[in-house]
């Protein structure tokens, strides 16, 4: 019997899928599961004018690419570091300077736009959000009357490529969450993958065998992905059931970003230099953080 084909890739070849002007989907709900290793790799490649589809409420994966100058537009319900910064700093700065277009939405509308793409619909009509500023702020999200009621006409949003980070995958592209995953079964990883028109890349903490994955199919959230083994690939974000976010690192990042907001670009440049441009790849990044600090973030299995 012929062998099944594996779908294992490297970080570099995965990041090379991204070209200027693309629509890029990124996993990451607040602090959880951002594909940071690939985000740093994309930032190092210096691509431009990306549209990011992230969230629904997003965090550092989005802010860092904005801060690195790769992004022209974001489709997200918010960019926040809860309890660290009410608004993520690079997002705030770029939006306030007019360097960034924001598709103003909330989490439900974000999902509806992906659903419309996944389902092949030209739009969906939604009652949530009538009477708000969203139609004023988005030229393609208008209020319409239908059978005497007002609705928002939500257009499809379709990523060209999607990157996500998860606990595990097998070599055949079956990506799964940790058994101890936090809320619900998943966030928006499958919503992004279902809407995508092109490849889906999963960086994972660990590649496991197909046999392991097959015993618990309910944990598999995405199938057919390209898989890159990338331990600590979400750092400083957390991975549900594996490690918690490194909030001290977020505070350091936020302080640097807030200095930029106050007119001092040096700390943020220094952050990018030491954590993105100055590290040659993910292994170098991990070494720069240090094994001891990383180990201290592990979720106890108790």
């Amino acid at each position, binding site marked *: 019997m012929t062998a099944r084909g594996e779908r294992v890739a490297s970080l570099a070849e995965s990041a090379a899928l991204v070209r200027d002007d693309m629509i890029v989907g990124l996993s990451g*709900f*607040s*602090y*959880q599961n951002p594909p940071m290793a690939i985000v740093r790799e994309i930032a190092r490649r210096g691509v431009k004018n990306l549209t990011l589809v992230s969230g*629904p*409420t997003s965090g550092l994966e989005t802010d860092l690419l904005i801060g690195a100058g790769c992004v022209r537009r974001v489709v*997200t*319900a*918010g*960019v*926040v570091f*809860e*309890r660290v910064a*009410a*608004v*993520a700093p690079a*997002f*705030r700065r770029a*939006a*306030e300077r007019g360097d960034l277009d*924001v598709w*103003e*939405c*909330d*989490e*439900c*509308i974000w*999902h*509806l736009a*992906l*659903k419309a793409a996944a389902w092949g619909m030209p739009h969906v009509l*939604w*009652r*949530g*959000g*009538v*009477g*708000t*500023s*969203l139609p004023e*702020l988005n030229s393609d999200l208008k209020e319409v009357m239908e059978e005497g*009621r*007002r609705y928002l006409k939500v257009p499809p949003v379709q990523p060209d490529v999607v990157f996500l980070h998860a606990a595990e995958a097998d070599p055949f592209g079956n990506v799964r969450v940790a058994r101890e995953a936090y*809320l*619900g*079964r*998943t*966030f*928006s*990883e*499958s*919503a992004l993958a279902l809407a995508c028109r092109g490849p889906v890349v999963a960086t994972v903490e660990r590649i496991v065998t197909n046999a392991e994955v097959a015993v618990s199919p309910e944990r598999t*959230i995405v199938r057919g992905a390209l898989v890159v083994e990338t331990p600590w690939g979400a750092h400083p974000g957390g991975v549900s059931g594996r490690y*918690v*976010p490194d*909030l001290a690192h977020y505070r350091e990042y936020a302080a640097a970003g807030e200095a930029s907001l106050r007119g001092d670009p040096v700390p943020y440049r220094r952050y990018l230099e030491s954590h993105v441009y100055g590290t040659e790849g993910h292994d170098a990044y991990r070494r720069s953080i240090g094994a001891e600090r990383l180990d201290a973030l*592990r*979720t*106890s299995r*108790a």
Partner: protein
Amino acid sequence: MSEKRVAPASGPTTPPRDVARLLTCVVARELRDGEVVAFGLNAELLLAAALLAQRLHAPNLRIRHGLRIERGHELSPSAWTEERASRSHEVIEYLEAHDAILDVANRSSPMRFCDVFFVGGMQIDREGSANLIGIRGKDGRMTIRGPGSIGTTSIGTLARHVILFSDEHTTRRLVETVDYVSVPGWRRRAAAGLEGGPSLCVTPLAVLDFADGRMRLRSVHAHATEEDVRRRTGFPLPPGPVRTTPPPTPAEVEALSVVDPKGRLDRVDLCRDGGPR
């Protein structure tokens, strides 16, 4: 009671945590048996309020904390936390993935997302609209970028009851008209063909409610003064007798000690004095 002037008891005799506990009781009293209550932000305080209501008068209150409905006895760590321990509560429901939030929009289904929903914002206005989007400068452009509307807009539009919650009471927070609308208040809802509007606005200084779609003062907390509350509100509040917010009852105090044995409410961030002028 209605004639009694609010005591200016804003000295250091009221420690901050007592404000958190008072607000917990204020919110708990608004929650009714059989409802589903949901919140995203300010999770510790609102979760404590829901657990309190469950113990005291609403045993069938269902608590949606993030995407989960849980049943527990104690205040747990909030959604995004450095705490490693998995939360101890019984999860009795969760949405399989975040997009399942769309499936629970039908408010007459027994599986509806919620009945009562809490909303905050950078600005809250007289008619109860909330803004998480940004602040306009004098030229009308957005000069201060807000976080974004996160999970508030659709749920806030579709929920049966919205309660506004603010961790400060300042003229920058409570404004005549919000610069952008994340969640619509009474007039905007009416114009969009939606019934009702927010029922309450809870702040560290006072409880406000709505009459004819405009905010009015329902009660002032014991550690604040009516004068200060009016001065710190960015729009006129109708005159009239104002009562003091009833302090925690003995039953509430006792239940609070069960709900929050580790004193998590002590660490809730609230501007006890209302916040910066």
